């Protein structure tokens, strides 16, 4: 199996490197390392930035996530060249977009099937387990602990201690389902940017090694990483996002462009937004009913 993006794209990247940005090999190595690490963990980084330093200023998760992915995409274009992101062969245009939309419908069906299957399992488990158990969260015990003070010292004594971001932050340093209940525009932007980061930047980096084994491992790694990045919504969502990850990666490898995958993801996110909106409206009607 020989995995590669189209030769034109690889060629474009090399030209960009050779003449566009005069990077030394050392700088390029560090730049790729930083780009790979930050791109692979973009969701976690956005959640940390927001929870620690921005949440208390009223900043929501989605703008932080979108800004971070935009910066990473720009850095990816600077480091790898625009090939596969901003440029690519023309033929995927109409056919690629149609294929992307078809893949989107397939993803909607498979995601729904996995989600329903896991919800059924969870219901069965709840029925078996019964309700509640004696529970005292460990954090409550830790918070109740007090530092040992010197004899005669009162808590108000002495200089102020620095309040660190990690102490200020509340929550689990992760995005929640509530963070994703936003307007359609945000969800479409996230769809495009996630594809640009995972398929545009990470997948292209995974395809750079000369050895085929390393390339296959890299592609599988990117597919799994994308699915695992949804761990914040539970293991069922990790499983449910595997079809999207596989199809988007396949579409990118076949068409040589990230746009078909972006269309797939946009179709899926538009469906998610519509479903969330319908559920909200239904809930409000139920609440309003006498």
């Amino acid at each position, binding site marked *: 199996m020989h995995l590669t993006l189209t030769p034109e794209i690889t060629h474009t990247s090399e030209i960009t490197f050779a003449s566009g940005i005069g990077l030394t090999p*050392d*700088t390029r*190595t*560090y*730049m790729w*390392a*930083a780009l*790979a*690490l*930050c791109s*692979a*963990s*973009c*969701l*976690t*980084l956005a959640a*940390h930035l927001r929870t*620690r330093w921005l949440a208390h200023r009223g900043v929501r998760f989605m703008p932080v996530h979108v800004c971070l992915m935009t910066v990473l995409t720009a850095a990816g274009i600077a480091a790898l060249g625009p090939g596969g992101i901003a440029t690519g062969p023309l033929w995927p245009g109409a056919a690629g977009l149609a294929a992307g939309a078809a893949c989107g419908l397939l993803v909607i069906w498979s995601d729904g099937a996995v989600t329903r299957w896991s919800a059924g399992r969870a219901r069965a*488990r709840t029925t*078996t*387990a*019964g309700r*509640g*158990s*004696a*529970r*005292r*969260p*460990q*954090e409550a015990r*830790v*918070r109740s602990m007090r*530092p*040992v*003070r*010197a004899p*005669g*010292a009162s808590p108000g*004594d*002495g*200089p102020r*201690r*620095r309040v*660190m*971001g*990690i102490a200020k932050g509340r929550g*689990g*340093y*992760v995005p929640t389902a509530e963070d994703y209940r936003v307007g359609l525009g945000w969800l479409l932007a996230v769809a495009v940017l996630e594809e640009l980061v995972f398929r545009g930047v990470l997948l292209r980096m995974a395809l750079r090694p000369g050895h085929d084994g390393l390339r296959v491992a890299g592609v599988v790694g990117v597919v799994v990483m994308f699915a*695992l*990045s949804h*761990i*914040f919504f*539970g*293991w069922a969502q990790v499983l449910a996002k595997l079809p999207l990850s596989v199809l988007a990666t396949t579409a990118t490898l076949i068409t040589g462009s990230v746009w078909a995958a972006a269309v797939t993801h946009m179709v899926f996110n538009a469906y998610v937004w519509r479903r969330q909106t319908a559920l909200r409206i239904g809930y409000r009607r139920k609440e309003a009913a006498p």
Partner: protein
Amino acid sequence: MTAHWPWAVRLALATAFVPVYYWWCKRLLFTGARRWAHRFTKDRRYDRSEIGGVMELSAAAVSHVLAVAVLLWLTGLPLSAIHLDSLDPVLLVLGVLVGIGEMGIASFLCRLVIEASLHRPGRPGRPGRRGSRLPAAASAGTARLGGPRDVGGWIAMSRGGWLRHHFKTVEVLPLPLAVTVMAVQVGCEETVFRGVLFGYLGSAGLPATLAVSVVLFVLMQCFFMGSWRAAMFPMVGALVMGIAHGLLFWAVPALPPLIVAHVTFFLFAVL
């Protein structure tokens, strides 16, 4: 001094150094630092744990410098072999980004471990495949034995052990001084686990050297942690950093950008 000895002997020496220094010597050091901290609690502005944390980290930083000097003498490696002199500003800036990225990956992997632990079969409220049910009292006991019941509990655990020194130091000392103490300590760790180990054992090739460096670096993190669960956070961080820094040092033999990345990782974790 021992640089020309057979590789297996050098490996044994390097492996012995980690528990001898990072466990035994540091235990003596921390005991001494705690005794001094008790004397200093006459200063009532700070409590014992704060003074103890600062003193332990400061003592560790000073002893790390001495340990590096002893290690260089034992191995016979010249200073030029550990590549401390590469101060390319672009690489230093990129080192900051590498550190942030490593923190993100480490945090993400820790989250995976936590989720796996919270959702594993057999947890109270989540019976195993056999469908066994525990009575309420037994469930609570299992919860205590089986670790935290939620993410908040895990995060609370992550502040224990030797990480407490770093938290206390940043809380109490002026930030530039706290960062300096931290930088000296982690700079010495980079020097030992990348500079010295790669120079000393590098003749065996990248895979063997990287494996030894990563294993020893991860092992060192579990010393002075209260439990394996508390040690999970630094061990996962060390795994990510050990692999990334090992590969980067092999490709670009320059230590200062890696020290910057390590300090950034810590600051991002603590601040």
